[in-house]
């Protein structure tokens, strides 16, 4: 008996082991999530092209179908030639406009000999902002041996912020606490104070926290001191959420208050319902027992 079981165990180990071994034979590589880039209206053209390269190879997922070097996929056209061919692709459309369009609406013009399969870069999963699209175009232009011609406009940056990460309560709280009246973030808001979209690239989250609490900690260059109201009335949790939001815009991570427990009150209420349900079952059981005993007594008597 135990011999058989031992045999079965060995057999199982051999089969599973063979599978695990097979898994070691295929090529091994680890894929890391793409790094976030922050593009502003003042980003240098060379940097822009460099960002574009990162986007094409990372977040954009373009290399699933295209190649930007000698080896690579050929489901879509060779990206090294894209910018050079762009002027002659679509009659009446300038090279830069054509390239932008081919990223924003790939279906608007489909290159001969290819299926209309390319996902729009501005839609999920790539979900690029216009600034990012322009960075990619800058890269394509450099790739073809040219100079980047694109310029980043303020409204391009706007969508850049909206495109990041999960929903931020922090953004909503900046409305609640009227930061937006003086600051613009992600393309919205006033101009009394500095633009905050990239503020976290210049300051650490902890520094920002103390600044919002107590504006006199330091004063931003080129702006008057004493204008920004003291934030000590803002709830601690909200402060953290706002900083987490600003940090996320800069691609940094800062833990806000953490999620409120999804189980807080509902959990208890649900528990009560379950308890009552249990008691009900118990009652039914007792009654059934009683009935049985009564019946048993009757038939015996």
């Amino acid at each position, binding site marked *: 008996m135990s011999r058989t079981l031992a045999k079965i165990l060995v057999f199982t180990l051999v089969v599973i082991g063979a599978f695990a071994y097979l898994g070691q034979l295929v090529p091994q590589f*680890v*894929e890391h*999530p793409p790094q976030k880039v922050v593009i502003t209206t003042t980003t240098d053209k060379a940097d822009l092209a460099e960002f574009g390269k990162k986007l094409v190879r990372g977040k954009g997922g373009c290399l*699933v179908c295209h190649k930007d070097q000698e080896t690579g996929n050929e489901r879509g056209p060779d990206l090294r030639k894209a910018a050079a061919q762009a002027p002659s692709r679509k009659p009446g459309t300038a090279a830069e406009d054509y390239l932008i369009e081919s990223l924003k609406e790939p279906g608007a013009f489909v290159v001969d000999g290819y299926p209309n399969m*390319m996902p729009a870069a501005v839609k*999920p999963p790539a979900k690029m902002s216009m600034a990012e699209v322009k960075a990619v175009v800058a890269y394509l232009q450099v790739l073809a041996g040219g100079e980047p011609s694109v310029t980043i406009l303020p409204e391009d940056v706007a969508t850049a912020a*909206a495109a990041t990460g999960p929903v931020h309560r922090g953004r909503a709280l900046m409305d609640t606490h009227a930061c937006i009246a003086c600051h613009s973030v992600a393309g919205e808001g006033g101009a009394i104070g500095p633009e905050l979209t990239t503020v976290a690239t210049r300051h650490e989250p902890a520094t920002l926290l103390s600044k919002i609490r107590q504006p006199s900690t330091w004063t931003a260059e080129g702006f008057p001191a004493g204008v920004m109201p003291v934030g000590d009335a803002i709830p601690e949790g909200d402060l953290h959420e706002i900083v987490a939001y600003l940090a996320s815009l800069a691609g940094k991570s800062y833990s806000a208050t953490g*999620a409120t427990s999804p189980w807080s009150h509902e959990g208890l209420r649900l528990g009560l319902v379950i308890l009552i349900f249990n008691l009900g079952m118990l009652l039914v059981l007792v009654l059934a027992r009683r009935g*049985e005993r009564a019946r048993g007594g009757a038939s015996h008597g």
Partner: protein
Amino acid sequence: MIHPSSSPPVTPYALKGVYKGILKVSVMLALTYALISGLASILPAADYRELPLLGNRVAVWIPAQLHLMFAAFVLGVPIFAVITEIIGAVTKERRYDELAREFTKLLAMAYTVTAVLGCMLLALLVLLYPKFVGYMSELFKPTWLLYIVLIFGEVIVAYLYWYGWDTMQGRYKKWHIALGVLVNLWGTALLFVADAWVTFMMSPSGIDEANHLVSLWDAVANHTWMPINIHRLLANVAFGGAIAAAYAAVRFLNASTDEERARFDWMGYVGSFIAIGAFIPLPFAGYWLGREIYQFSEQMGVSMMGGSFAWLWILQASLIGSLFFAANFYLWLGMGRIPGANRYTKFQVLMILVLALGFLTWATPRSIIATGGEMAAMGGSHHPFLGLFGVMAAKNTAVNLMILTTFMSFMMYRRGNRIPVVPWATVGKALQALVVAVAVGIVLFYGVYSYFVPSLVRIGFSVYQVSAVLGAMAVFVAIDIPLLKGAREIGAIQWGKIAPRAQYALFFMAIVFTLLMGLMGYIRSGIRQYWHVYGRVADESAHAYTMSHGSATLIVSGIVLVFLLLIAGVFALTARQKDKRGDAPAQVALAGEDAR
């Protein structure tokens, strides 16, 4: 109202059993809740918390996959049980009812393990991924409430089904079967709800640009929901059957009498039959799922089939290929106990050939990430000759032929000891041969023709191929049933007279099924890459990377081993439990062998 003088089908004994189940689930939920809220209030607030040693990713992966496997088992077993119970009621053969009963008995213990694993998973998710879980539970709030209600409902019907087995015999049988059907409907509802969450993460819909809920129904009924529902449902049946067959195999190998051997041989056959029967349509459900993924996101589809995950499909193909081999091997060995089946031995060489070629074709990768040197050697990103076999057209052709071959093995097995005597027997057999030949012809024709048409047209061809195979199988069976009516028996099947090797084929199938589930689970979850919700909510933790295939397969292997050990434990403990047969003490003796 039941007449008071007759013993009611639902006895206090049954009620007590049900109540124990309810209590168990209630206590487990309460403990989990206490644990989660206790720890959540002690631990510092964060978007992600880091678990030392294992790391979040693996810590969640292991209980999730184990929970899923057990869930598949507890959903698969009732389907398996009800089918066998119905066969027993229709054929009036007692052994079917006994078989169904024996497996239903496992449910109570298996539910407990499933629930414990589920609670572990929940606690780990809430504690390690508070922000993301907060988002999901807010979004899907009504559904998880529904889920809890469904769990209690499932426990009630399933425990009534088990505890009512002996009292609901005879004139109550149809109600008992209805109860069994209810268990399955309930279980399916549970599966569908849980699938909504998982598939939303793969192919989100029903939310706006800022990820706020727009329509809960749209979020639930996303692109991949139905295909995954169907795929998992079929897989659960196949899985339940395979595990049942493996259990029978253990009992067979340990049996000391011929009578026992006969019984467990037969049980293993029924289990494997149900497993293969449910397995045959699975590739089709898989294609449907694949198509929906492409429709949702071309990019996800391409990176799943042609990108980094392509290699895992090679592993999957080798698992499925060996599964087909094992199934046919088992059937052929089984023919040894069927007098007269040696008539069909001559076909086995041809069938092995088809299986082997099909296997090779299926395991040929299409586009893989090759190094520059490899590409230079091949003269392109695809191999000039092998590349031809890597494309979907060749794979479709291969899998269709393999399915047809396995079907033919079954049919030969069925006919093994019987010679048709109906006057139209020769015509009937000729017709059957013709139907199969036509199906093979259609599959091959479209397989070859595919190479000469653009891919858009080609995709449509797989429909013709599948229809030809399914159609041929249907026609074949439709002819077979009247054909074998009153057929002359060469001799009775000698249950128990099968080589022990065949039992290892059954183990092999169960192990490979489990490995397949683990691997496919990883692919399904892994193709989201660094997203919690694909394209919408990014995974911003340190575990967002996609690990190497080697590490992933090692983890899958470990999970499978743990699962098999756990399920063996469930079987062993259940067998040891005192089997009280309802309120009828006279029947306890009957169950004596269960306790052995």
